[in-house]
């Protein structure tokens, strides 16, 4: 057995009271592509930050080619032969490809010796089959797929032995994904070690030699990719079977009416989308990053000024492009960016609960605070928020409790309306998730129309009554009832052009 290129032994890291990594061990050998899977919050990104020197582990040993090392910063990690292609690329758009390849390199001389650096950058790009890229072209002009190739070329030019790729295909087109796959296989053949972080199981099975699964910061399993099945990986990732988490669907809740969207266009993001979200049901709009799913909800909430199209709620038209107009039509929006678009972080939890509906507690413009407070307390009980927390500032609450506040606002409304949710459980722990899922069903029963977008497939499969899948701003699939199962939705998202199911 040859020595692994890099290995972690018993690495732990906690941020305050939250353990991000618990005693994780992992080793990657030369010529190996290791898949790294896990839910959001499983510890994948912390693990990666530990390897790049962006986070110091609390305990454990990192060995590079057998030598124990303390990785001080990204520069040091590079000099040890570790290279990262992060989900958000680390390229400076206004610099040329050449400058980006050498940006921050440890051996980049103070005064550029252009000739030599050019040759090495050229060689690195050529090795990736990117002979067509001009070294002097600014990165700004490149599509995402080519930017990724520049990132990889940067690592190769600096002699990285171990490449870490974090969700590299999230924003790529099919052709670009194909190209990336073959590049990575080529690098494996040259003896590089690769850690491939992805929740796209199809890619993992196609590319990886072995797979490691993390859950809640702990190592769950490591084994060869052959012999694993999609189901076994998912069970490892979730630690349970689907059913427990999600409340039963209530078929009786379906009612007449709902939200009909016709020819919705948000320039550059959504192109002529038409769909129907029935009242009393949960409609999910699925899609990868850049699919435009999130923008649909933002447009309905009036937060996309350039949105055009025809939206009717129970038959009456909604004015697009104006948040107050949407709010007046009982359209509530739970943002994926709670801090910026949802909560008032410096107000108390109670004030946040009643904030969006002050007019309902007012007579002739004067707010009745006693009545408002009573109502707030009532809602707090309904959403499962303890009374002691009501006086705390919203910014001090956990992600789950913050989200409960936003749902509570919907519950506070006497008239049912439309609840738009982008990533409703992002940053929410497992226990609070179940509460939130229960709340969503409650709202259905009260006659609300729920439209949700989420990057977590199991949430789609567990909660949605109706799933629309978008790809690059267009609708590509529609599933209902029994058609909603993980593999199918995953296929819709990742192989978008195959099914012609879109109605």
């Amino acid at each position, binding site marked *: 057995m040859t020595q692994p290129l890099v290995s972690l032994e018993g690495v732990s890291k906690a941020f305050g009271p939250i353990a991000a990594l618990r005693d994780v061990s992992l080793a990657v050998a030369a010529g190996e592509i290791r898949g790294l899977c896990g839910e959001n919050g499983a510890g994948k990104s912390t693990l990666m930050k530990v390897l*790049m020197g*962006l986070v110091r582990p609390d305990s454990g040993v990192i060995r590079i080619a057998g030598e124990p090392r303390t990785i001080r*910063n*990204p*520069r040091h990690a*590079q000099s040890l032969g570790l290279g*990262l292609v*992060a989900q*958000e*690329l*680390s*390229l*400076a*758009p*206004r*610099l040329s490809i050449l*400058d*980006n390849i*050498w*940006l*921050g*390199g*440890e051996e*980049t*001389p*103070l*005064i*550029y010796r252009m000739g030599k650096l050019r040759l090495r950058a050229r060689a690195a790009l050529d090795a990736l089959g990117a002979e067509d890229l001009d070294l002097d072209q*600014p990165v700004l*002009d490149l599509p995402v797929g080519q930017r990724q190739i520049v990132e990889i070329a*940067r690592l190769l030019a600096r002699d990285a032995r171990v490449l870490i790729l974090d969700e590299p295909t999230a924003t790529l087109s099919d052709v670009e994904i194909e190209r990336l796959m073959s590049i990575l296989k080529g690098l494996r053949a040259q003896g590089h070690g690769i850690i491939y972080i992805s929740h796209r199981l199809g890619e993992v099975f196609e590319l990886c030699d072995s797979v490691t699964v993390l859950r809640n910061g702990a190592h769950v399993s490591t084994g060869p990719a052959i012999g694993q099945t999609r189901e076994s990986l998912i069970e490892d990732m979730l630690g349970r079977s689907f059913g427990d988490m999600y409340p039963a669907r209530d078929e009786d809740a379906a009612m007449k009416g709902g939200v009909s969207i016709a020819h919705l266009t948000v320039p*550059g993001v959504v192109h002529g989308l038409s769909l129907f979200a029935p009242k009393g049901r949960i409609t999910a709009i699925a899609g990868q990053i850049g699919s435009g799913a999130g923008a649909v909800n933002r447009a309905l909430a009036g937060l996309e000024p350039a949105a055009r199209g025809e939206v009717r709620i129970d038959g009456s038209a909604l004015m697009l492009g104006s948040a107050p107009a949407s709010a007046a039509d009982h359209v509530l929006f739970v943002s994926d960016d709670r801090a910026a678009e949802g909560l008032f972080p410096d107000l108390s939890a109670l004030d946040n609960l009643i904030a969006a509906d002050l007019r309902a507690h007012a007579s002739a413009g004067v707010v009745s605070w006693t009545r408002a407070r009573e109502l707030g307390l009532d809602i707090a009980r309904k959403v499962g928020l303890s009374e002691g927390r009501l006086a705390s500032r919203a910014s001090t609450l956990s992600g789950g409790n913050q989200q409960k506040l936003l749902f509570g606002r919907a519950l506070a409304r006497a008239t049912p309306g439309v609840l738009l949710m982008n990533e409703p459980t992002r940053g929410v722990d497992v226990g609070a998730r179940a509460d939130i899922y229960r709340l969503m069903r409650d709202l259905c029963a009260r006659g609300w129309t729920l439209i949700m977008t989420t990057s977590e497939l199991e949430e789609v499969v567990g909660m949605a009554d109706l799933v629309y899948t978008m790809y690059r701003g267009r609708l590509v699939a529609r599933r209902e009832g029994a058609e909603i199962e993980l593999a199918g939705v995953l296929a819709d998202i990742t192989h978008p052009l195959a099914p012609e199911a879109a109605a």
Partner: protein
Amino acid sequence: MAGSLRNHPLARPLAIFVACFILLVLVDRGRGNVLALATGFSMFETFATGALVALGLGLCMMIREFDLSVAGVFSLAGCLMAFMGGSDPYLGFAAALLAGVVVGLVQGLIIVRLGLSSVGVTLGGLLTCVGLAYVLTENRSLPYDNIEATMAVTRRIWGLFSLRSLVCLAVVALVAVVFGVTRWGREIIAMGSDRRAAITAGAPVTGLLIAIFAFSGFCAALSGAMLTMALATAAASGLSDVIPPAAAAAILGGVSLAGGTGRPLGVALGVLTLGLLRAGLNALGAPPFINDIALGAILLAVGVLDGPEIARRLKRLQGT
């Protein structure tokens, strides 16, 4: 080829400068008021007062920071020059530059170590420097009694320049070369366009930030000290309005408040544009407020062109 020329970072500052020049010459209608050596000299004298402050501030803006303390350092350096540099200008320069660099270093360290916003920190620096200058001068304007030195820095050289403007040109040229041929220039641009990306790529961002604030302090001190020599006086309240023209010059020079754009030569061109406007309109005998209106209109135009909406539309027009 045309595209790459248009995208060159110096293309716009140069275009603005040339456009202003042509406009002034056209308004002059061949009377030779604008096309005179005196206009050029005047332009370079304005450059001598403002160029270095704009350069330092411009570098700060390139990395998405701001340095309000330049105005304070500028006054303090002038007072130190008047205080210590009367008999020996070199001693005055040493004291002024030391003060400028120390103020910049301290501010840079505070910003980096405590993770504070540069606007707040440098506002503190500004008030501290002005306060020190008031204490030093006891709220009186100080004469700088070295007539030979005054005449030496203001004497006209080759018709267009003075020692003062030549020093500024030399510093700008040096910075432009360093920015162009070393990795620092690339790292500054990278740091301004996306600091997280620059860190991930391995650029030494903390060191650069501290160095840029120190350099900004150095620049403000050098020009403040030289202005005191040229005007033979120093005052805690400052001899010249520094920050608005410097910020305007940086923006004309292609530096955006969002960081990550611009070049030192662009900033220098921005300062020259301000000087040209001032000198040219003076030569035309335009009333004083015309200069402000013209400058305001140009800045507004630049700001509108920089807006994301316009950029998107332009891009769509180009079909990319």
